[in-house]
């Protein structure tokens, strides 16, 4: 989708606000929102690509204006509703209750398995690499062009790279394909490459900063061999 989350190269967003120091979590609710990702992942709400797609479907104005971890709350609600795992009327009713009673306590339950899951998943991770028999169509050194069309649904093919030509500098092997997994499909592994673009190729010679490049990772279906006959790609 061509969403507001696809921010690379957007102008007019103002200063980068860099405080001298800040806590890891700025409010108590951020802690719970952060933890919902791991625990709802475990409970089958979403994979990481679906998780991102849920965020991408937020209202664009809210996306830009809300604190970061609220994005995570939206995607938990999105899949909780879509997969019938959450009763939204009940959620609204409880929200009203906690608005009126902000210090009311949470229900208490013990489950040592959940703490054990956290202890295990943090150091182990959840690798996205997947075995595949597919032979790579490209290799380091190849000139490639990113497909320029506008895919519907979840994709990692950022707009600022579409139609642009660069050189493959790294080949990483096969990984879950977000354009499948993020849209409710299977892992459908594809080769991942890092492509190097010059600033001038991305932004045009009048706008580009001098002496710089951008590296961007692509899955194989994102790219085609560059047209090296001299015609514009």
């Amino acid at each position: 989708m061509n969403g507001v989350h696809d921010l690379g190269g957007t102008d007019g967003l103002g200063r980068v606000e860099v405080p001298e120091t800040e806590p890891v979590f700025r409010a108590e609710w951020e802690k719970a929102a952060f933890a919902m990702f791991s625990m709802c992942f475990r409970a089958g709400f979403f994979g990481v690509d679906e998780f991102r797609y849920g965020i991408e479907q937020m209202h664009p104005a809210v996306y830009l204006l809300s604190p970061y971890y609220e994005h995570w709350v939206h995607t938990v609600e999105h899949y909780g509703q879509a997969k019938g795992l959450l009763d939204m009327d009940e959620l609204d009713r409880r929200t009203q209750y906690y608005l009126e009673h902000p210090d009311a306590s949470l229900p208490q339950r013990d489950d040592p398995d959940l703490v054990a899951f956290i202890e295990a998943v943090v150091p182990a991770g959840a690798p996205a690499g997947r075995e595949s028999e597919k032979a790579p169509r490209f290799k380091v050194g190849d000139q490639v062009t990113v497909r320029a069309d506008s895919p519907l649904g979840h994709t990692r093919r950022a707009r600022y790279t579409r139609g642009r030509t660069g050189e493959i500098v790294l080949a990483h092997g096969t990984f879950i394909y977000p354009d499948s997994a993020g849209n409710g499909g299977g892992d459908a592994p594809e080769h991942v490459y890092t492509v190097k673009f010059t600033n001038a190729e991305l932004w045009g010679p009048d706008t580009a900063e001098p002496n710089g490049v951008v590296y961007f990772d692509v899955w194989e279906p994102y790219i085609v061999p560059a047209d090296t006959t001299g015609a514009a790609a």
Partner: protein
Amino acid sequence: MSEHVRTQEEIAARVKALESILIEKGIMTTAAVDRLVEIYENEVGPQLGAKVVARAWTDPDFKQRLLADATGACAEFGIGGLQGEDMVVVENTADVHNVIVCTLCSCYPWPVLGLPPNWYKEPAYRARVVKEPRKVLRDEFGYDLPGSVEVRVWDSSSEMRYWVLPERPEGTGGLSEAELAGLVTRDSMIGVGPAASPVS
């Protein structure tokens, strides 16, 4: 899709309501939240990346392994895991400066840097640093790079997690590995600043 921007009070109530339902369904517990928060507040943070950088500054063989296979080299320290399953380290030199971003969301190498600062996840940095990195580094981070230095921006669009091996500061020849680690800042491993200079 709601177009209402919630207040902090509204978000807090919404999250508490959601958490209460998830607890009752057996999906969450407050003990698991507390443990996860404790890990990222106190155990996993940029002090881990700093240890790796200090080793790379003092051990050329390790540095070679780090640049060839960052995931494997970090595993030598027991460092790795969630959001760093496949890491790539890029090296700053006198001629090359690297900086990382995730324009599409907020991808960041958690096992070595912890959770990202808010500015890394907010729209302005993500929008601007791919288009005008020199200006962002100079105007927002006070880091003015000479025109002769090539600026390389790494947009973390896949599950590869990039981070920066900063240049070792001048005048650190006599420092121990632990003292060197103390000079390695989070920002230097994102690439928005240099490593700190030793206090003379």
